[in-house]
């Protein structure tokens, strides 16, 4: 916070690069290129978390997203072996209407967030101790329920994606 101009410059860089990377995820024709643009996008989002004094979230973002979710995407692309993708068209027929609906959504959202004010008590200094003690005391029940959600997703993913045994006969 001691150098607002430097902060501003970095924020503008992250704004532009995040926008370009997310557009590149959509616009690239090869799916594996989309996955790699998504990788760089997620690392930039981790840097934005670092700006907001959320060091623990940055670490979790890199571990879970880059190490888990993106590896899952790359594995899925590899297993499906989509070679014929380059010939097909990328977008649906009503792509113009989709873009229009998205821009309308952005306009409405911009009207909402344009004049937002938050009373600045004091900006949060990222403290992992406080975050951990809050997570294990006040938010203990949602935390445990979340472990159940992950277990159900794990079992469900395995059951859905395994081969149907009747087809093998």
């Amino acid at each position, binding site marked *: 916070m001691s150098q607002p101009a430097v902060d501003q410059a970095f924020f503008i860089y992250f*704004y532009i690069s*995040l*926008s370009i990377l*997310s557009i590149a*995820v*959509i616009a690239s024709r090869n*799916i594996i290129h*989309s*996955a790699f643009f998504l990788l760089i*996008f997620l690392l930039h*989002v981790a840097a*934005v*978390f670092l700006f*907001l004094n*959320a060091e*623990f*979230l940055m670490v*979790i*973002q890199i571990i879970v*997203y880059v190490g888990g*979710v993106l590896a*899952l*995407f790359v594995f*899925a*692309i590899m*297993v*499906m072996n*989509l070679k014929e993708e380059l010939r*097909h068209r*990328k*977008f*649906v027929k009503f*792509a113009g209407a*989709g*873009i229009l609906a*998205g821009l309308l959504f*952005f306009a409405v*959202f911009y009207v909402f*967030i*344009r004049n*937002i004010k*938050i009373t*600045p*008590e004091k*900006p*949060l200094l990222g403290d992992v101790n*406080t*975050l951990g003690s*809050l*997570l294990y005391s006040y938010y203990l029940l*949602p935390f445990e329920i*979340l472990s159940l*959600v*992950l277990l159900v*997703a794990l079992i*469900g*993913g*395995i059951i*859905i*994606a395994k081969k149907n045994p009747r087809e093998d006969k």
Partner: protein
Amino acid sequence: MINEYLLLSATLFTIGLIGFIIRRDLIVMLMCLEIMFNAVNISFASFSYYGGNYTGQIFVLFSIAVAAAEAAVGLAIVLALVRSTGINHSDEITGLRG
């Protein structure tokens, strides 16, 4: 200030929404879902920072875990669909029974 972070969040959410609508590949649609999740997480973290409260960061933790579960189940569904019918485009799925 918080306006800039919310504008960043809105921009990324809009790009993810447009990509989810207009792309045909199911895997890229799931990637656009991840973009939207990240936009919402930025919004949560900025409210947490400027409001001086840790609740936003804890919700980002929950959101990241739910996003991981969503990606696992979604990719499993796409994999099962591709394996059973050979379709991986969203506008070619016309039958309910494989």
